[in-house]
């Protein structure tokens, strides 16, 4: 009996989220289309409970459940990240002026469902569970992107997302099947450990005879991660989906979904190439995977930043900016060292504050002006000074200038890149930061340096307060990053 109860305890956060998701659905039915906001409050309370459970787990010894789920601090870090971003997204949904707030209980159900997918995705070394978590997240995201059924842009976004997502998932699955064929196991730790004497040859045995099949499988699997993180050449969906989806959903995709991709990639690479029992030939191969990732990083950030420069829609601009940021994060991943992974995790934490803030601003501004074009921002800073100042802070942080958390995050990434000897990559990244200054500054210029158009802006004090808090935290952790760094250090993978 205990053999079943103990692992279930380890899965408490996942079980609670599942209960919350079903609860949200039932609650909406019981309310019969009256104000769905109540379901949103219910979601917030459940997220708070899950967060408390997760917080108490930080620092615990890693355990495993049912042979597939790994419960460790690394997973807990990204679960907390997901819960925290989902809470903010829920508040965004609740404050969204473009939303009817009737009959939208499924919104919260789908968000919670996506979170369950992320939870499993970040806490497993088993490729089956990884794939199932990823697909659960994807399926919920497709539906969320098309949530405004009557809106043509939303429908188009969902269609494009489902096609790209389906293709990438299929490609990744094919890669996984090849890895399984080469190694005879689906467990990443086992894969890296096998000496290659038995049949099938195993990763080590295969690498000593011919690296081509392994390279093929590796590229196909990495495609799946690249799609989730919107890394070139699997980024095509990003601008269209970000623009067409409802803004809270865009926020979710840009922050939580991307973080899930990063977490799964870190775990995949960490288990396969950097674990304690990894065969030396496999570890050496990891270095060349790192080289491939470094090239992808350079291409991704350059393409993201150059495309962002000629955008007229603020959401689309932020979509390209999020592609560029995926490139920066890849610097830390490409180093293939524990310290590089730490820098990537820290950057995700920084990314949380600045991107939630920036998308929160988009939602606020879209709700009051009914448009997300950069032209419409003209003089907005005089009409809504508080949130415009907050937005400028987020932009400074996204550029990577002091005194914000974005600066410290980028500093860590660049430092690890240099330590790993990737001078050219850090050079490209530094140039990219300069390029990004142009288009981020263009927004700030629109806000404050242009004459205001007439008309006033309706107030949303609570929502503005949330943005102000994010803004203060962006600066606070920029000046004193120790608290977050300490937290990240407690949650390292290796």
């Amino acid at each position: 009996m205990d053999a079943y109860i103990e692992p279930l305890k380890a899965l408490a956060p996942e079980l609670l989220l599942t209960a919350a998701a079903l609860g949200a659905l039932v609650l909406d039915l019981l309310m019969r289309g009256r104000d769905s906001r109540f379901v949103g409050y219910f979601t917030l309370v459940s997220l708070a409970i899950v967060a408390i459970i997760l917080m108490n787990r930080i620092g615990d010894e890693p355990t495993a459940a049912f042979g597939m789920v790994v419960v460790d601090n690394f997973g807990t870090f990204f679960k907390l990240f997901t819960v925290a971003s989902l809470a903010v997204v829920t508040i965004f949904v609740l404050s969204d002026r473009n939303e009817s707030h009737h009959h939208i209980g499924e919104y919260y159900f789908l968000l919670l469902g996506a979170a369950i997918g992320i939870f499993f995705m970040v806490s497993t070394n088993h490729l089956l569970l990884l794939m199932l978590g990823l697909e659960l997240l994807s399926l919920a995201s497709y539906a969320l992107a098309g949530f405004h059924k009557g809106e043509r842009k939303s429908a188009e976004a969902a269609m494009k997302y489902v096609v790209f997502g389906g293709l990438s998932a299929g490609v990744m699955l094919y890669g996984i099947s090849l890895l399984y064929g080469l190694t005879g196991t689906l467990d990443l730790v086992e894969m890296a450990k096998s000496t290659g004497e038995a049949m099938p040859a195993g990763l080590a045995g295969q690498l000593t005879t011919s690296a081509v099949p392994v390279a093929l499988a590796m590229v196909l699997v990495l495609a799946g991660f690249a799609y989730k993180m919107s890394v070139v050449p699997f980024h095509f969906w990003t601008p269209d989906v970000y623009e067409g989806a409802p803004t809270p959903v865009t926020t979710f995709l840009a922050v939580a979904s991307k973080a899930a991709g990063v977490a799964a990639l870190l775990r995949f690479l960490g288990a396969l190439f950097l674990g304690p029992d990894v065969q030396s030939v496999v570890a050496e191969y990891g270095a060349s995977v790192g080289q491939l990732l470094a090239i992808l990083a350079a291409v991704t950030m350059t393409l993201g930043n150059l495309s962002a420069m000629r955008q007229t829609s603020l959401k689309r601009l932020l979509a390209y900016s999020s592609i560029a940021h995926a490139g920066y994060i890849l610097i830390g991943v490409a180093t293939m060292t524990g310290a590089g992974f730490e820098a990537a995790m820290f950057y995700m934490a920084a990314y949380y504050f600045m991107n939630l803030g920036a998308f929160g601003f988009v939602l606020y501004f879209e709700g009051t002006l009914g448009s997300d074009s950069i032209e419409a921002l003209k003089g907005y800073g005089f009409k809504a000074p508080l949130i415009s100042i907050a937005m400028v802070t987020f932009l400074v942080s996204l550029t990577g200038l002091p005194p914000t958390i974005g600066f410290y995050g980028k500093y860590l990434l660049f430092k690890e890149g240099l330590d790993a000897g990737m001078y050219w990559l850090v050079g490209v990244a530094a140039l990219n930061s300069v390029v990004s200054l142009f288009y981020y500054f263009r927004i700030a210029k629109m806000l404050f340096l242009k004459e205001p158009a007439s008309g006033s802006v309706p107030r949303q004090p609570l929502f503005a307060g949330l943005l102000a808090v994010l803004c203060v935290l962006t600066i606070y952790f920029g000046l004193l990053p120790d608290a977050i760094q300490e937290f990240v250090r407690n949650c390292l993978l290796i």
Partner: protein
Amino acid sequence: MGLGAYIAVSAALFALGVVAIVVRRNILYVLFGIEMILNAANINFVAFNRFNGDGLDGRMFAIFVIILAAAEAAVALAIVLNVYHLFNTTKPAEVDLLRE
């Protein structure tokens, strides 16, 4: 029949799926292409399991993939139906409000 034959079939199916996605102008054929890729992976899983695995991992994975494919088809078709209602077409080229 050896393992090679199975892998050849699955590789062909995978390639056909990718070709379908790239060249077909109708979204439904694109979805067929995705299904073909998923089934190519499935053939691999079952064949590898039969020829060189001792457990049931690969076969189990294949069953999960069938479920995944069904779930994905359900969501994708619902989305395509909605697009058809709003745009009166199922050709991706004619659904292009979102662009630079």
